[in-house]
């Protein structure tokens, strides 16, 4: 029997974002896959190099709407790493609160979408209804549902008012019973067990070889979490557990995320209850020349930023590496040999976020680059022409 090629995407109801996956199938079994990216590339790194340090946080926030805390935090940590400086404890607590709120809403979003891909729309609706409560908390704390704009090098932009804390705590407490119900409904459901157990297994060795990050690696038994390995923010102030499971299948990835949500609620509550007093901003005036790196644990894994400064008010180089960049190749290890019907949920299990991953797209096609030097010159000339037109210069 001959092999058949099934394209998924770029515009496909399965994918929120444009992305092309080509599955080569032999009957029902997937024998090979190929990925094509670049539909989301917007030139964030280059844009960031044209902006002052304070404004770059807004650009990195727009790398991804779901990780809109992780990227600014990694960027501000990179800037703070260039020269010795101390962020106040209150700012660290506020950052932790926002980051854990994002982790809860991102994992709930994933849980809902995973249910949707399985055809289990009840989970989708429940999870997203619950997610609204946590978005309300974020709206009270930051003023927006998704892009929080709370971060700046040296501290945070907004303080948390004392009168908001009891309202937030009440709302967070109100989601716990439903979350536990969902946890039981998902973990004890024989249908989900039959559907997900042993599907798309990422072995321990593969997780190490592909350098998988975040819940994808922790489900395969690799205890890897930046919050424990290299503590930042307020994470060393309280006790919390790193969730690690051993099987590496889709069910375990779901278990890791669900249990992490409960941990995140505890961290968030601790921080809100024990918020220290103090300044929230260190008021950085100048950034001296130097290099800095910042890495934090995003909901999907480790987000890494590199910033190089030459003493002016703009970064000369800004490099972003998102967790999906490392996690997406594991799809090749997990999907081959599985059936087409499982291919969707195995892809969803790594919680892919393509707009995070879309850095510069150079495709090496048999030695020929998609963008060669001439193309880059042409792009640059076109941009100059456009800017001239906009500013009315001949």
């Amino acid at each position, binding site marked *: 029997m001959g092999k058949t090629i099934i394209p998924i995407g770029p515009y496909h*109801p399965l994918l929120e974002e*444009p992305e092309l996956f080509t599955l080569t199938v032999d009957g029902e079994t997937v024998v090979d896959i190929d990925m094509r990216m670049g*539909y989301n*590339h*917007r030139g964030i790194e280059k844009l960031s190099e044209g902006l002052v340090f304070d404004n770059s946080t807004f650009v990195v926030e727009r790398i991804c709407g*779901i990780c809109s805390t992780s990227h600014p935090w990694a960027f501000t940590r990179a800037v703070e790493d260039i020269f010795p400086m101390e962020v106040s404890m209150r700012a660290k607590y506020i950052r932790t609160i926002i980051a854990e709120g994002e982790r809860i809403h991102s994992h709930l979003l994933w849980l809902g979408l995973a249910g949707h891909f399985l055809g289990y729309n009840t989970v989708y*609706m429940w999870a*997203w209804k619950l997610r*609204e409560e946590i978005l309300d908390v974020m709206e009270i704390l930051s003023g927006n549902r998704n892009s929080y704009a709370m971060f700046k090098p040296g501290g945070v932009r907004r303080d948390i008012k004392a009168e908001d804390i009891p309202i937030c705590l009440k709302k967070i407490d109100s989601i716990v019973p439903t979350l536990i119900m969902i946890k039981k409904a998902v973990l004890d459901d024989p249908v989900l067990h039959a559907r997900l157990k042993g599907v798309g297994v990422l072995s321990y060795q593969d997780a190490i070889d592909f350098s998988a990050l975040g819940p994808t690696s922790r489900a395969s038994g690799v205890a890897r979490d930046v919050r424990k390995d290299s503590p930042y923010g307020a994470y060393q102030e309280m006790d919390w557990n790193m969730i690690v499971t051993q099987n590496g299948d889709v069910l375990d990835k779901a278990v890791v995320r669900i249990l992490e949500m409960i941990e995140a609620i505890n961290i968030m509550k601790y921080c809100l209850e024990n918020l220290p007093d103090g300044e929230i901003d260190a008021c950085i005036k100048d950034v001296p020349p130097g290099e800095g790196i910042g890495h934090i644990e995003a909901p999907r894994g480790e987000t890494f930023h590199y910033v190089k400064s030459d003493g002016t008010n703009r970064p000369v180089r800004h490099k972003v590496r998102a967790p999906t960049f490392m996690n997406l190749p594991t799809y090749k290890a997990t999907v081959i040999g599985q059936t087409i019907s499982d291919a969707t949920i195995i892809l969803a299990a790594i919680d892919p976020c393509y707009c995070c991953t879309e850095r510069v797209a150079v495709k090496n096609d048999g030695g020929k680059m998609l963008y060669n030097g001439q193309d880059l010159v042409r792009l640059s000339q076109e941009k100059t022409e456009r800017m001239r037109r906009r500013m009315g210069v001949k």
Partner: protein
Amino acid sequence: MSLKLKALLKSPWVFHLSTGSCNNCDIEILDCLTPRFDIERFGMLLTGSIKHADVLLVTGSCNRMSVERLKGLYEQVPKPCLIVAIGTCTGSRGLFIDSYNCPVPLDKIIPVDVYIPGCPPKPEAMIAGIVKLIQKVGGS
């Protein structure tokens, strides 16, 4: 008003098209479908096939790779169809106006019926925008 347009407004099925967005508008569109906002009670349904769509919800700043696909998809929608530009990126390209990969704004590529600004617009704003669109086209 033509019969086709009248029938279209009764229960507009929407197709979601991301042209290089940051995911924010996309998840807010999905939020509109979930229990708190629940636009399905007005007959709006997210459809998986462009051939079934009455309304295109376009998000993102139209980068070079997606512009070609956007044109192709626009040709496939059954006409008449309505185009809703969601988010600041589709309206003015927002932050990405200086980006080398976002050369043209959306309304230079396909005709747009309504703009919903915001980064991201709240689900309430999206619902209000669609209601205004229906009023504008329906003339009531």
